């Protein structure tokens, strides 16, 4: 089985800082992650999740801003809407909706991020890779 690959969407001002702080404090998490920064997690277009899975990623983790978001107070709700939509799209395409997950990562959430991403990858392992057929 090829190693699972996870795409992480982070946000410039908050969750990316949180992910950085995991680095600063040396909280390890699996290396089979790739991180793409957005300004705010509510920018996520649901179809990008499908695109990621189709491009070979086994899961998408959305590190949302949570209540710290400097742009929007209701950032979490908005992002949740996008992720709901993304799950619907995945389902419509015959893909497990569990492949996308969101969580609010604050700018000092070093350990929570490391744990969440470990859990997420652990869950994905149960589903397996999307590239299993290849």
């Amino acid at each position: 089985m090829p190693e699972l690959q996870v795409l992480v969407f982070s946000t410039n001002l908050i969750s990316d800082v949180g992910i950085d702080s995991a680095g600063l404090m040396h909280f390890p998490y699996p290396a089979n992650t790739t991180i793409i920064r957005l300004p705010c997690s509510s920018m996520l277009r649901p179809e990008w999740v499908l695109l990621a899975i189709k491009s070979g990623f086994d899961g998408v983790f959305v590190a949302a801003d949570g209540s710290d978001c400097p742009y929007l107070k209701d950032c979490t709700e908005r992002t949740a809407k996008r992720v709901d939509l993304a799950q619907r799209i995945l389902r419509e395409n015959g893909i497990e909706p569990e492949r996308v997950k969101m969580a609010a990562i604050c700018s000092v959430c070093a350990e929570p991020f490391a744990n969440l991403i470990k859990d997420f990858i652990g869950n994905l392992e149960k589903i397996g890779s999307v590239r299993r057929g290849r």
Partner: protein
Amino acid sequence: MQKNDKKIGVYVCHCGGNISDVVDVKKVSEEASKMKNVAVARDYMFMCSEAGQKMIEDDVKSLKLDAVVVAACSPKLHELTFRNVIKRAGGNPYMYYHANIREQVSWVHEHEKEKATEKAIREVRAAVAYVANSEPLEKITVRAEKSVLIVGGGIAGMRAAIDIADMGMNAFLVEKQPFLGGMTAKFDQEIFPYGKGSLKLVNDLIEELKKRHIIVVFTNAELEELSGYIGNFLAKIRIKPRFFKESCKDSNLESICPKKVIDPETKEVRSAIMMPPFEGAYPEVPAIDTNICDFCGQCAKACSAIDLSQKEEILEIKIGAVIVATGFETYTPKQGEFGYGTEGVITLSTLTKILSKKGYLALDGKKAKSVAMIYCVGSRQEKGNQYCSRYCCSAALEAAISLQKAGTRVFHIYRDIRSYGKNEILYEKASIGGSLFLKYNPDSPPTVIKNGGKLTVKVKDLLTEGKEVDLDVDAVVLVTGMVPRENEKLNSIIKVSVGKDGFYQEVHPKLKPVETMISGIFICGTAQGPKMAVESICSASAAAAKAASLILKGYTELEPFVATVDPNLCSLSGDCIKECPYNAIYVYEYEGIGKKAKVNEAVCKGCGACVAVCPNGAIQLMGLRNIQIENMIVNAGGFND
């Protein structure tokens, strides 16, 4: 597809081993050099160094690179650095992507060197995909209002206002209380080593303030609303009436007022009429506390200067920047915390107030012969405030010196005496003056017992082999620290983020100590964290300097990362307009196309919320267009190669 003739340079930083100890940087640059459009890929010890920058600069010039990728530390540190490098080399600074392979790769995957290298390659691949689709952007120039709003009229706020005025800008100073001076005016204590009292400091600043007519002071006023963006903020200020047209000669006014209340801070009885609290206070005109006053009108009968018909006003002002100097509050111990609530147990702030008035401490009319001071109350706690409040050790020592001068013996029950810098002299002075220092372990804190009118402090003194010492004292002073001011309303207006300790969070303690995540809003003084008076003043003028370097020119430049609508794709679904939290999108009549959505660039903050909801992908973020993200997603993994 996009035109694919872009020349890209990829630069991988070792960060002096921070990255290269884990990531095989040579391999990353080798892989990068094989990527599409990459003209050159190099690695170097310190990309951010002068030599590293020069390397990129030279490459951009000689190889005519269109775009650059640097894989190094977090973009929060150096994205700007490298954008400037490209600019210097004559390129467009936005044809750039900063891949984070330190915080997000080498520092977290130390034990998986190969996988870390692979991740770094993926990050670089995504970055190359990004810049391959990037296009030159220009900064958005916005005219900036050469005036600054300062929130808080304590020493920091006043200092900032004076500096703003002196540097050639208009200053608006807003103070919630009826008088200027803030906390410093309440504790008249000598400022070491200046030999000047803090009240004198406040008075000096007020005098300076009064000299400058360019400074507009609003007391009894609050920031009600803040809209706009750097250089062009619109602030609404709510000014409560003072009900006094001018100063009133009759000094009996306070007793005429039938309403009496115990002031929560001074614990003294006062009326609804608030007289200037100290000589030289500003404004000199008294004010009526509307929280208490029931408009019985008795005072108005006594004094013609009182006009109870005054109404609240709301003022709108245009400003270019905001400096937040809202200060701190003192920690109030919980009932029973080190005997708090028992008679004779007071806080440091109460003690300083008493000392500034009387010069000695007397409870029940008798001068206290001995006083025990318990340090770190409300600071350095395992649960509660973890931080050190910085000023309290020195302030307590200063108070001890005054007490000793008045013949009172002082016991200091402390954890660490933090009289840093020149304040060490205070520690020495207090010591020589007869203070006894006893060190306690936080695991077995001192206890305060009141037995038959006698206060006893029991402390296990680490300095004396941990022996339990009983101190019979006349008073116990709890050396209380600073806590962040609770100001939900203001926080929701200015939207500056708050750190774990509850104080406003600066962007970076060393690089940007007074800047906030919101450009154009600065923090200073104790609003940012505990500080001594002089340090507060320094940070205030630092904030003024930073505001000046942004708006003094009369214009300011904004990053071009704003949303933009392709009117040809727009179906005017209205989703984006609903989605935008800043009301930056409106309907606009495009020539020859008709009514479509349009973005106000200066108001747009570039959050991208609109991007997600557009059914047609007509609205996109400059610098992060959908095609760029999509290309990053498709190429990052390299699974399709």
